[in-house]
């Protein structure tokens, strides 16, 4: 081996292999120890923390669901009081929507997207870390309050006037509203990071038309978050100020209007459903392609459907408000819009079926979740089309039929694909395969448990059982169906428990996975499992939508980024032509300290508006130190011949 030039600060034919690994690891690794752990800016570490945290919240909210099912199993059950039940269903919905469903989708993308795009880290890596801390603090605040019997109790959408100062004294609703502030700051930060990463940091040659469909779905979702989340943040801000400083936004006696709350909430809340669902469709597209051994059928149609769903999602919010009384034209318009959104989703489903049909499907565990998704989601979609019709909606509004519908679309449409995606990318993140046998068993038990729980709710709903009641009289004829749902819930929980056991066992002793155990086509499978801290020794270059299938082992790479400092490649947004070598920020503790300062301000401001004034000072100091350049002494670039 020839002697390496010690000043050689770029990868290339002369600097590759072991020596390149040594230098890149030195440039990209973080400090060991607790401070280093708290300071990380590596998207893989942040993504894994996000995923684990989101699954903890899933477990907590799932247990609350089980408690509710235990209470409702029999009529006139006295297991829990009405007040406790109100807190429990509010916490269940709030946790599932704000602390599990949206964050877990962002979390999966934070881990996977940079690998799929062939880059070394996300843009704004410190903002990414900040986003995680804000999420963690918001979720922790909510659950600490719940344990202290100050859990919110006005439902996950906290309708005024029930949630207003008159009907909800105490701090329960304020905790809910401030949790919104935390998660929205976190979600918006993550969305900006996601959108800029996808637009600017793709591998050379990965034009928009060659981008993986999951990346497309996350781009659409990031833009939806940017346009939708301000609505709920504004709404909850107005609610807080009505409660704390006596404004009258939602007070009809002083010119306000309670329905303003609903409009702003659902302007966010309906897109929110697609913010959860579209990443799941991205998972499905990846899984279907890999396990059918062919590219997704009609890629342009799938991408156009994603974009169309993202746009249409903003024109549907009023269908949550049919029962509030609307002008006739409003009824007609929002019914039509709600029916229209089923078209692009239908197109996607037909494209997946065509992909399976034309391919050579392998029914490995991730593919089973895909099948489970298609079956379940189609049922949920059809009940959605039913509910889009105003006369039927007025009949079924606030009944268990609606509960059945949204669990079919959210669990069937998002959690099933998520569990498939976790199984699929688990070997990439850990280097080990999940057990196939245990995986099949957990799928079967979860699938059966799910349908046993939620299918009977369609009928209980049509029989008139309202949602959010802590008990019901004997003799209504709802007892048997509720008992079946409760038994189903136990089975469903057991299925999820099997999934978790599989994760733990496989993490410790699963079969060792190679770089590409599923023989998939995406760039994330071009690096080792788990990937090195710098992701790729040389940045991959792509010429097709399925690079690993088309290039085989000889994936082309580009060279020339520095190896003695953290550098990323940014490209033009449409054609992915290399444009600038951008530095990537180093790890620092200040995003965490900023999140603490801002978090204390937020929690404090539940009690006094002056917290915003006093909290400004430490927050501004922390943010200033975060942004202040700390390492100006990067060695100058070596000359290029």
């Amino acid at each position, binding site marked *: 081996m020839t002697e390496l030039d010690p000043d050689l600060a*770029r990868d*290339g034919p002369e600097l*590759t292999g072991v020596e390149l690994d040594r230098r890149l690891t030195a440039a990209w690794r973080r400090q060991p120890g607790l401070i280093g752990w708290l300071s990380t800016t590596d998207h893989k570490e942040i993504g894994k923390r996000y995923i684990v945290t989101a699954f903890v919240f899933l477990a907590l909210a799932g247990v609350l669901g089980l408690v509710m099912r235990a209470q409702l199993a029999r009529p006139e059950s006295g297991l829990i009081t009405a007040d406790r039940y109100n807190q429990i269903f509010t916490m269940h919905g709030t946790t599932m929507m704000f602390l599990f469903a949206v964050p877990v989708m962002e979390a999966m993308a934070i881990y996977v997207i940079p690998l799929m795009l062939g880059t070394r880290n996300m*843009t*704004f890596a410190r*903002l990414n870390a900040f986003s995680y801390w804000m999420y963690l603090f918001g979720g922790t605040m909510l659950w600490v309050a719940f344990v202290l019997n100050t859990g919110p109790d006005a439902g996950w959408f906290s309708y005024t006037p029930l949630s207003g100062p008159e009907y909800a004294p105490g701090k329960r609703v304020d905790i809910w509203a401030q949790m919104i502030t935390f998660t929205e700051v976190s979600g*918006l930060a993550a969305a*900006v990071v996601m959108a*800029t990463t996808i*637009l*600017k940091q793709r591998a*050379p040659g990965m034009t928009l038309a060659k981008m993986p469909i999951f990346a497309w779905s996350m781009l659409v979702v990031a833009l939806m978050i*940017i*346009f939708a989340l*301000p*609505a709920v*943040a*504004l709404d909850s801000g*107005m609610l807080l*100020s*009505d409660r704390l*400083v*006596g*404004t*009258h*936004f939602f*007070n009809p006696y*002083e*010119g*306000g*209007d309670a329905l*303003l709350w609903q*409009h702003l909430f659902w302007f966010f809340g309906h897109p929110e459903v697609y913010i959860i669902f579209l990443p799941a469709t991205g998972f499905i597209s990846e899984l279907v392609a890999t396990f059918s051994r062919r590219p997704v059928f009609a890629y342009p149609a799938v991408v156009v459907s994603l974009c169309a769903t993202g746009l249409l999602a903003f024109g549907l919010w009023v269908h949550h408000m049919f029962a509030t009384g609307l002008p006739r034209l409003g009824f007609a318009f929002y019914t039509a819009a709600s029916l229209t959104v089923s078209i692009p989703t239908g197109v996607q489903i037909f494209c997946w079926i065509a992909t399976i049909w034309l391919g050579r499907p392998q029914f490995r565990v991730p593919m089973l979740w895909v099948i489970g998704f298609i079956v379940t989601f189609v049922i949920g979609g059809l009940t959605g089309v039913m509910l889009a019709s105003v006369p039927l909606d007025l009949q079924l509004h606030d009944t268990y039929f609606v509960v059945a519908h949204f669990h079919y679309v959210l669990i069937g449409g998002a959690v099933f694909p998520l569990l498939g995606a976790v199984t699929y990318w688990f070997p990439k993140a850990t280097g080990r395969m999940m057990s196939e046998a245990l995986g099949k068993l957990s799928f079967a038990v979860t699938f059966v448990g799910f349908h046993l729980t939620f299918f009977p709710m369609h009928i209980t709903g049509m029989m008139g059982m309202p949602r959010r009641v802590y008990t019901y009289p004997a003799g209504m004829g709802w007892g048997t169906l509720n008992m079946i749902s409760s038994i189903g819930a136990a089975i469903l929980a057991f299925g999820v428990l099997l999934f978790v056991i599989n994760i733990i066992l496989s993490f410790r002793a699963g079969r060792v996975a190679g770089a590409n155990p599923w023989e998939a086509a995406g760039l994330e499978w071009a690096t080792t499992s788990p990937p090195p801290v710098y992701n790729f*020794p*040389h*940045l991959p*270059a792509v010429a097709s939508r399925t690079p690993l299938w088309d290039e085989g082992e*000889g*994936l*082309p*790479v*580009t*060279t*020339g*980024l520095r190896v003695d400092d953290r*550098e990323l*490649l*940014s490209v033009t*947004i449409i054609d992915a032509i*290399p*444009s*600038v*070598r*951008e*530095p990537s920020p180093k790890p620092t503790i200040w995003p965490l300290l900023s999140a603490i300062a801002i978090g204390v301000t937020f929690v404090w401001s539940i009690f006094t508006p002056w917290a915003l004034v006093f909290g400004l000072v430490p927050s501004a100091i922390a943010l200033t130190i975060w942004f*202040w*350049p700390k390492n*100006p002494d990067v060695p100058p*670039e070596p000359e*290029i011949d």
Partner: protein
Amino acid sequence: MTPAPRFTGDLAHLPTHGFGHRSLTWWGIIGFMLIEGGFFALTIAAYFYLMSQEHSWPPPPFRPPNLIAGTLFTLVILLSELPNTVIKRAAEQGRLREVRKLMLVMVGIGLVLLVIRGFEFNSLNVLWYDNAYGSIVWALLVLHTTHILTDWGDTVVLGGLMHTRHGIEARRFIDVSENSLYWRFVWLAWLPIYFLIYWLPRLA
């Protein structure tokens, strides 16, 4: 054994910074302007929604806000675009001395605006807890004031940074350029709010 990589291109000749849409910072700023723009748009939507609940606007017995402070604020913030444009150009051409001088001017302008804003709050002729009209007018003004305040803080820190040895780095000039871009957003967002707070109650 992994096969030897197939080298196809080299990036070493690429620049390490670029202005405008070539810079990641620019895309980040655009993202945050979309978010903040969403906040303004939705607050304005809420304004019209609450207005539609009333027979007259402002609801009696309240009078529309006095014009002097708000109009003065509008004039000053419009004029601030002159040094803002010069500073953006100076940053993009790497003229450090000019940038340093003009950042101080922008800090001064921000202070003047904050003082005038104080008088604006005093001239609304309604308090936030009087009724929903008062609440939404205050909400618009508070929302915009947070933008003046945060941009002012940003300008102070960046201006300080430009006076240190970090100021000569190309990336700092990008920051100055994007700070100027954000200022344009702040004053552009003000124009519809000025109309809604001061003129619509007179015309409606």
